[in-house]
């Protein structure tokens, strides 16, 4: 959901009382026309607030918490669960970590140390995050709390997207830190959400060989399905172009 322009103007007054709209755009790297359009429509996007917050060295989570619809973000950050941390590690990183474990080698040799984890978000971060915090009823609770149709919610997850409003609603419905969903969708960074540096790496290191290998298996299976589907779509498209293009 977008933020009301009036509340946005009030907030902007508070953090940059003397700055003109042009100044704000220049500092935050937002296109002037984009901001002007959002103000005219009375709907300012959440990412605008995040960009401006960063430009003025304000924590975007704290900034968002000042708006009525995101007031749940207020208060001290809640640390992420281990499942959430692991869900934000890319499939390739998980696979490399698994290969580096001695248990993976029949001779018990330790593989080469994997490179540092790639930054959040990864290609299936949103879907993996929701799966990680889902007790089986979360989707249901989100749809009754926000009124979104379950199939629309699923469609967003399939596309690895989630609107900020839904990301926060999902966090709340699952009882995890309210800002976690915003990390998984890539709107804010781990650091901004108060995740400790290296927390993902620690969570990964604490996984048993069996758990890690099973997780990698699940992720690889899902990735295989996605890739195969893309290959099929591509083949079908090529065929159409070959015959009708």
């Amino acid at each position, binding site marked *: 959901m977008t933020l009301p322009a009036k509340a946005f103007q009030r907030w902007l007054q508070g953090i940059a009382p003397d700055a003109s709209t042009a100044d704000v755009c220049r500092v935050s790297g937002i296109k002037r026309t984009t901001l002007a359009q959002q103000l005219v429509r009375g709907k300012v996007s959440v990412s605008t607030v995040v960009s401006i917050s960063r430009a003025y060295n304000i924590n975007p989570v704290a900034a968002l918490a000042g708006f009525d619809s995101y007031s749940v973000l207020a208060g001290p950050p809640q640390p992420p669960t281990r499942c959430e941390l692991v869900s934000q590690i890319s499939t390739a990183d998980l696979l490399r970590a698994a290969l580096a474990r001695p248990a993976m080698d029949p001779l018990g040799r330790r593989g080469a140390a994997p490179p540092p984890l790639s930054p959040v978000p990864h*290609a*299936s971060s*949103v*879907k*993996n995050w929701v799966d990680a915090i889902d007790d089986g009823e979360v989707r249901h609770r989100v749809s009754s709390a926000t009124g979104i149709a379950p199939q629309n919610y699923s469609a967003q*997850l*399939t*596309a*690895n*997207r989630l609107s900020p409003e839904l990301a926060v609603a999902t966090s709340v419905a699952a009882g995890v830190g309210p800002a976690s969903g915003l990390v998984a969708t890539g709107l804010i960074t781990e650091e901004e959400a108060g995740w400790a540096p290296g927390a993902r790496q620690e969570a990964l290191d604490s996984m048993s060989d069996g758990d890690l290998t099973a997780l990698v298996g699940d992720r690889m299976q*899902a*990735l295989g*399905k*996605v890739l195969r*589907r*893309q290959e099929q*779509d*591509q083949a*079908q*498209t090529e*065929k*159409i*172009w*070959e*015959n*009708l*293009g």
Partner: protein
Amino acid sequence: MITILQWTTLAVCGLVALARVPSAVRGENRSLFGIFALMTLAILLSIEAPYVAIDQALGGINLANLLLRFVIFGAIFFLGIRVAKGFGATGTYRLITGRPGILVLLVLSALVIAVFFLMDTEGSSAGLSTVYAKDDRHMLLVEYYGAAGRAYPAFVGVALIPAMVKAIGSRLPVLVRVAALLLGVGGAAIGLSLLFPFIPPDWSAMRFVVNYTAVLCYIVGLALIWVAKVRRRKPLAGTASFTEK
């Protein structure tokens, strides 16, 4: 109004055919150029002024109308083959090119020719309106002649609809799905044209609207697929986000 529609359709089809000349010269999908060229000729032959001019050259006994029927049969036959192949509709492809399809084509062609020579076809006029006005017997024969002429396009057009419906709901590129929608609507419109004898005479404008809807849908649909091919981006490049369905 109808005249504008006719000449617009002719212009659109002629332009698309012209636009395909370079690729036909390069040897890409020549039959597609053929389809557009045949369709342009067919539209030209359905407009009164060019029809009369051409028919006078052919002896003034409405041979041009018979020619028109076979131009349409040819265009729709190749179009059906191409579309069925491209969209992977093997069942439809076999129906059109297999024994049943060829039999339908032969029987309807024989019928068209037979009924044509049963009539006294003196007096050039598009749509055989002067012949139609001769007497009750001719009125009936012209109806049969028209019905036989519309039956084959309707057969192919309707046979393609299931594959188009499937393509609309697929994950193919958006332009290709829009094209499938247009091809489906075109097929449905040709199918509807079978009901022409049951349309009250004072609704005759309906006939034109249905006919030209079909033709325009087919032309624009095929052109869109071509546009989609030209605009194609590299497959899978920049696929930053995806998850399994």
